[in-house]
């Protein structure tokens, strides 16, 4: 090696380990600017988000996004013409209810029994509802299920059209007040409140 190239002894540190010494050359300026920039950023982040409270922390931002997504879904359902009124209207059309009954017997009766008086699933003929009594509430339960309580989500399996039919059919069961499973949930009265 060329000895003339060793001319940085002013930067050589005093300590040595096993004869290995190290230089204290200046760090690249770009590296230092990243360091200073990070310090300024973290201070600004701390002040703006934690001290002043302007802007959302990640968790709050996520919650906002989730609410916005739910509202978007609702809006899309409404765009498809779905409403309490439309479901109730559908429940009055005999041909549609024949289809709805067929679906009900095939998919729902295993838990709610053929007449809707309930076994594993709640009694659908009484005036008590666990997850709200409006037709749209029923539609939501059928679509998304309540897995923790044993109600399956049917949205993906049946598709939107058949979910509407079977929801409308369930509206026709209400008010029959058949003896069966004991009432569960809250009392809402005889008429569904649309």
């Amino acid at each position, binding site marked *: 090696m060329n000895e003339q*190239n060793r001319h940085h002894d002013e930067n050589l540190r005093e300590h040595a380990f096993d004869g290995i010494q190290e230089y204290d050359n*200046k760090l*690249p*300026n770009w590296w230092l600017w990243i360091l200073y920039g990070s310090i300024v950023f973290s201070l600004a982040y701390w002040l703006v988000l934690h001290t002043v409270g302007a802007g959302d922390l990640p968790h709050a931002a996520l919650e906002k996004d989730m609410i916005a997504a739910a509202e978007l879904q609702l809006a899309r359902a409404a765009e498809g013409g779905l409403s309490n009124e439309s479901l109730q209207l559908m429940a009055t059309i005999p041909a549609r209810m024949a289809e709805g009954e067929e679906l009900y017997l095939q998919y729902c009766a295993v838990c709610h029994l053929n007449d809707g008086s309930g076994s*594993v699933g709640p009694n659908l003929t009484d005036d008590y509802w666990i997850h709200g009594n409006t037709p749209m509430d029923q539609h939501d339960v059928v679509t998304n299920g309540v897995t923790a*309580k044993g109600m*399956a989500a049917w949205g993906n399996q049946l598709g939107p059209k058949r979910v509407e039919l079977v929801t409308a059919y369930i509206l026709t069961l209400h008010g029959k007040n058949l003896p069966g499973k004991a009432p569960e949930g809250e009392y809402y009265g005889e008429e569904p409140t649309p």
Partner: protein
Amino acid sequence: MNDAVRRASELRKPDLDTMYTINSDGSRNFLHPADVKGRWQVRKNVIWSVLLVIYLGLPFVKIGGHPAVHVDIARRSAYLFGNTFTNQDFHLIFFLLLGFGLTLFVVTSLYGRLWCGFACPQTVFLEGVFRRIERWIEGPRGRRIQRNLGPMTADKFLRKALKHGAFIALCWIFAHAFIAYFMPVENLLDAVRRSPADHMAAFIWGMAWTGLLYFNYAWFREQTCLIICPYGRLQSTLIDPETIIIGYDERRGEPRGQLHQEGTGDCIDCLRCVNVCPTGIDIRNGLQMECIACSNCIDACDTVMDKIGKPRGLIRYDSQRGFEGQRHRLLRGRLLVYLAAFALGVGFFAWRAGDRTFFQVSALRARGMPYTITEDGLRNLYSIFVQNKSDRERTFLVAPGEDAVALGDRAVFIIPQDRVRLDALGEARLPLFVTVPREDYTVPQEFHFSVTDSATGTVRLVQVRFRGP
């Protein structure tokens, strides 16, 4: 940079004690590598041309309806040459990266940093594309240095504007090619034609990557390899005296001196090897952390040796032992250990990847009560989680397993959804009820539900436990 530092940096030569690309005040010493021709350059150009096509084209090639290499972040899945991986397979990425890492280990211990000089995208794009454009617009090394030191003239301004314009345009293209690995090409091409307001997030990613690439290829360059890339730092632990590296034959070259001088070696100290170096080292100081094994200095020195009528190879590929005039050994313990670890990692990946199932089932006990007491007896509620990991729609059948008879013949299984249709990569939670007459129950009983993929007939069993008081 003040004048004293500037003067010092003009006189400065690469050494082992400092990083040549950083001046004593921390400012950047920008390199202007000279042109070099030779056999290694020809080979690199061929390899780089192929690699450019591969790096830019992979997301556009479809295998089995999906891009050859694609990471779908939104759906948490990845496609790799016709195989689909979901988030459930994420652990496999460890073995994949281990495989890549150990391939580098094996190659490095055999032939040094071949990857850096011949295949790394940083080199392929920087040396193969950007440096070339810079050379076309700004001329050879001498003229580039003179112009950069000189005052701003119309000519300098135009050339700089042209160069940076071309760089930004290319970075924009390369940034989108990179994003295509993470966003379906059709969506990307569609998004490019629309207003940024329609897809703000993707637009910001596109601009950020364009900016980052431009910063990297226009200014940062070798600093990425020298300070940011961890692989170069491993060099000293991966190579040994038997590794083939690029080196300078000290025994033949020293002492340096002018041609035809008495008692000097073959090195005429022309500094060609230093001037062509893209990372600013003097290879005659020995192998260094900065060396990306680009082989520029080999071709530069061979050209000079040809001119002065000396044999080629003063700077060449050889092992440290070879430079000392000893025989080179190929097989040694280090290599065998790397090979064994490599085979283990890759073998495990291949085994696990081949053994993946295209659906996954797991059982969860419903939260809350372990059991309920009803008129019919004891009732348990389970929830089974089914995930379709294949890339097509599938229907799954749910039924009690054969060992469910252990619950007695009066047990009732209520399966609201005994057929579940799932989209590609879709998932569902299915509730299941089991009722057992009170008098039939003695102790908690384990049994299984079976889930069958109707397309393939593959059956997965999932274990649950019937509980009571």
